[in-house]
């Protein structure tokens, strides 16, 4: 019997193979996006979940008194004190990071060094691949596979030597004792090289004293005997507030809070000064989920539409089967099995597609690493079965439960005219067009935003600018001279924190108020080289020695926020509690980091080369590479012990643009598939309608109807539905694009009805092209053929 069903299904579908192919591919791609959405969700949900003792581990964060914001840092002595004195705390651990130069004698680069103790490996499940861990010996280190490959290639790193701080007088040689597996991407803790806390030096290059309450560690973890003690322990920690606040009077803490290891990554975005990683951007998960659902909906709706239209052609078979002894139950099973068969094929296509897509998808984003693994992944298997049954139901429920109920006599007498152009299929069509429009509008919105990111006035010169990081004044002088020697170099300048390298936020006092603002000490000519425009007042006067100590510029945002009711010029600002400056000018807003971050209030002071962190060089765009090579050679000659850290200005904006391009790409593919599916749906509805009304159309033509009237007759009610779908989908698409842009970018182009208009034009053109074939067929058919058929 199954064989009989299978033959019928196979031959039936073979006759409609193009239709079926589009549907199976559409459904497969939709299933693939659902699988990716699920994997993203799971990846995000499981952030940091791979540690066996994870339930017991909590991170201590500090809530600062003046702004009540949570900071990832914690006073250094708290760990030891809590371990010794707080009941319920079983153990404590600190983890500290520093970007420092390391070298193997040949290659030198800046890396992120992690400082901790042996206990780190008892707390966290980071597997050791070879060697051993001896962090109690400060002359040793363990490194990740990635770092090992970078510095030692294929040779065994265990037993080799790496020098840390080779650029400093206190440089230290470390023996590599162990090789660690790379950290998973969904781990808050990311390491490359781990060494003892004794090798830790602060920003002023002094060895860190962990008993100093003014020293803030990057991460402090407590292991509780019982996870339920979280609240109690955080209350007990309040006992240390008085001593901390007394010792560190300019960094007063309101209270400490404990964040469970298993969930902290999801709150990391709200944390300032956070040296640990954070979970996926929420839009990554909900965006993908939404897309998966919408695509699955479009594909399924199309499937339903196809099932309805094709089952119209199978009415006879259903009638015959009933007459020759098939029961309704048997028919329902037969049709459901057919649906299951197609869904299975689609699922297979979907999984193949997922397998193909995942590596590419992982490459698109630095922060995801998704894998399709079925073994010991019961939730994934359950999810796939649920998806399979759902699609089977959507694809086959209508024919299976509805059509199987028809009376054979009705079918044979031709009373049951079933051509799929009923209200239900019109609603399906409208929904499909709507979903396609959503994707199109979003695609156009992100295309516009990409243009914006590439061409918008971002407040500074970005063409022909490159920068190199410099550690001290001597280096700056040497490299500045080197740069000036090159004939193509137009201008050079120094700056402490260059645009793109997040400037720190400091407190500024003015008019009895205290505000947190970004702080950017710039050197001579920096404003001119970067072409930062002055709005009012004057710029720095480099001849005036008092400008270095008394004058300050603020940005437009600062003026708008805090000087709405008066002229900021001439106002006095106090920095670092004691340094007084007069506002001499206001500069136009510029993007300080990238498009992800908002434009924040900012102060600019004038500074001397001993405080410079970057050398900025301006050339023609075409000369940038040549100048970089020139500088690189010069650097290697004089400063071989230090890495040559070079940036093109566009690098700072590249990640925003990459994100935008990725989203644009995803939406374009989404729109293409959704459009293809909905147009297949439209085409089958119109051609079915033509089939049903061919006789009527022919008679009307004989009676003198014009082609336009025939076209109207055949397509008007579908086009009305499509237009409704277009309008509704367009508005939803606009809203959605805006939400997505807001969640990703602080600075973006916004959405306009223009996107809707373009999407609308595309849908209308494609729709007309789709139905034109059927209509031409109706208009040119030979009338006698149509009538003789009856």
């Amino acid at each position: 019997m199954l064989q009989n069903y299978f033959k019928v299904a196979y031959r039936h579908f073979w006759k409609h193979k193009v239709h079926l192919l589009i549907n199976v591919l559409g459904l497969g791609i939709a299933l693939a996006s659902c699988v990716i959405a699920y994997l993203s969700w799971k990846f995000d949900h499981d952030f940091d979940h791979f540690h066996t003792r994870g339930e017991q581990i909590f991170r201590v964060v500090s809530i600062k008194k003046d702004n009540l914001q949570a900071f990832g840092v914690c006073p250094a002595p708290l760990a030891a004190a809590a371990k010794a004195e707080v009941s319920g705390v079983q153990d404590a651990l600190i983890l500290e990071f520093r970007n420092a130069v390391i070298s193997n004698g040949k290659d030198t680069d800046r890396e992120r060094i992690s400082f901790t103790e042996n206990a780190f490996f008892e707390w966290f499940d980071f597997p050791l691949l070879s060697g051993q861990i001896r962090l109690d010996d400060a002359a040793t280190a363990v490194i990740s596979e990635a770092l090992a490959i970078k510095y030692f290639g294929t040779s065994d790193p265990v037993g080799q030597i790496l020098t840390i701080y080779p650029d400093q007088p206190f440089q230290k040689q470390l023996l590599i004792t162990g090789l660690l597996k790379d950290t998973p991407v969904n781990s808050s803790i990311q390491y490359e090289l781990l060494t003892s806390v004794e090798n830790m030096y602060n920003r002023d290059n002094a060895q860190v004293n962990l008993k100093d309450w003014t020293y803030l560690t990057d991460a402090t973890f407590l292991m509780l005997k019982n996870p339920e003690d979280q609240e109690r322990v955080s209350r007990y920690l309040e006992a240390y507030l008085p001593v901390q606040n007394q010792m560190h009077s300019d960094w007063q803490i309101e209270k400490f809070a404990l964040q469970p290891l298993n969930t902290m990554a999801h709150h990391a975005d709200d944390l300032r000064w956070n040296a640990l990683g954070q979970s996926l951007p929420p839009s990554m998960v909900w965006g993908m989920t939404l897309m998966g659902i919408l695509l699955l909906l479009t594909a399924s709706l199309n499937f339903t539409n196809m099932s309805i239209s094709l089952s119209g052609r199978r009415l006879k078979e259903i009638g015959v089967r009933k007459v020759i002894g098939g029961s309704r139950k048997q028919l329902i099973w037969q049709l459901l099995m057919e649906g299951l068969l197609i869904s299975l094929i689609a699922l297979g296509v979907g999984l193949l597609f997922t397998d193909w897509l995942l590596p590419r998808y992982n490459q698109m984003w630095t922060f995801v690493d998704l894998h399709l693994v079925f073994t010991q992944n019961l939730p994934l298997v359950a999810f796939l079965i649920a998806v399979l049954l759902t699609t089977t139901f959507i694809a086959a429920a209508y024919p299976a439960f509805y059509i199987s109920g028809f009376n054979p006599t009705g079918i044979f007498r031709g009373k049951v005219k079933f051509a799929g152009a009923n209200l239900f299929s019109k609603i399906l069509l409208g929904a499909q067009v709507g979903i396609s429009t959503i994707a199109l509008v979003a695609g156009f919105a992100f295309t516009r935003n990409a243009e914006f990111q590439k061409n918008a006035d971002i407040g500074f010169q970005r063409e022909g600018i490159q920068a190199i990081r410099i550690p001290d004044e001597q280096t700056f002088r040497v490299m500045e001279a080197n740069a000036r020697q090159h004939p193509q170099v137009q201008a050079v300048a120094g700056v402490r924190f260059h645009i793109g390298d997040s400037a720190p936020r400091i407190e500024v006092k003015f008019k009895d108020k205290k505000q947190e603002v970004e702080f950017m000490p710039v050197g001579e000519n920096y404003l001119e080289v970067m072409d930062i425009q002055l709005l009012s007042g004057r710029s720095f006067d480099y001849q005036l020695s008092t400008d270095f100590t008394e004058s300050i510029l603020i940005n437009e945002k600062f003026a708008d926020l805090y000087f709405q009711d008066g002229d900021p010029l001439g106002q006095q600002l106090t920095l670092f509690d004691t340094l007084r400056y007069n506002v001499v000018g206001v500069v136009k807003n510029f993007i300080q980091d990238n498009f992800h971050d908002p434009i924040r209030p900012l102060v600019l002071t004038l500074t001397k080369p001993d405080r410079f962190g970057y050398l900025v060089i301006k050339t023609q765009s075409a000369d940038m590479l040549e100048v970089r090579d020139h500088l690189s050679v010069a650097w290697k000659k004089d400063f071989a012990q230090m890495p040559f850290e070079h940036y093109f200005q566009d690098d700072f904006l590249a990640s925003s643009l990459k994100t935008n391009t990725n989203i644009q790409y995803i939406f374009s593919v989404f729109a293409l598939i959704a459009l293809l599916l909905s147009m297949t749906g439209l085409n089958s509805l119109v051609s079915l309608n033509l089939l049903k009304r061919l006789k009527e159309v022919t008679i009307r033509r004989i009676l003198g109807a014009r082609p336009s009237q025939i076209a109207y007759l055949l397509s008007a009610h579908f086009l009305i539905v499509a237009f409704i779908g277009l309008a509704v989908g367009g508005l939803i698409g606009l809203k959605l694009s805006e939400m997505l842009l807001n969640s990703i970018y602080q600075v973006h182009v916004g959405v306009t009805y223009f996107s809707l208009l373009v999407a609308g034009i595309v849908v209308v053109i494609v729709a007309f092209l789709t139905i034109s074939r059927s209509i031409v067929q109706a208009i040119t058919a030979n009338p006698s053929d149509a009538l003789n058929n009856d």
Partner: protein
Amino acid sequence: MIKLIDLEKSVRTGLNRAWILNQVNLEIKAGEFVTIMGPSGAGKTTLLNIIGMLESPTGGEYHFLDEPVHRLNERKRHDIHKQYMGFVFQAYHLIDDLTVYENIETPLLYRNVKGKDRKSIVADILDRFSIVAKKDLFPDQLSGGQQQLVGVARAVIHKPRLLLADEPTGNLHSKQGEEIMELFRELNEEGVTIIQVTHSEKNAEYGSRIIEIVDGNIRTDEQVRKSASVYGTK
């Protein structure tokens, strides 16, 4: 075999009720070859469908082999239909996506006949109807007469006691029609009760009894010759 008492079939048309069949009383014995004739719209096909349990009457009684069909539930009716009846249609109604062989085999599948038995039963009937050579063709590759042969083969493959035929030769030219009618005569002589609906006087001559229906009523009912059961099977 069949006994109809005051059988009615009506449909609602707007406020009125229209009778397709009205007060039909009829008895058909096993072995008869009955022809139902009458003008278009008289209710011939409806009567055939009711007898074949494809439609339900709106009133009256229907007894089949002493079972009160009008009181049976859907499932029971389906079982009787499945066990005792075979259908032949004017438009053949073969399943387009199945071959000749598969079309003929399908009723056996619904009756859970084992694979080996199925093969021999189908082979026998292909042989008997001389369509062995056509067994792997699809319906649209056959002529009308050949399709109807397959239709008849499919209708009798499970050895029904009652064969119902709705204008079986309506779409065929006369030569092909004669072949089908000869086949019916043979089947009848083997003991199969046949009820056919036709417009053709010539076809009616093959039967043993002619019932004329006009406006939902039996107008005439005449025995034209002794039925097979009376003079016995060969």
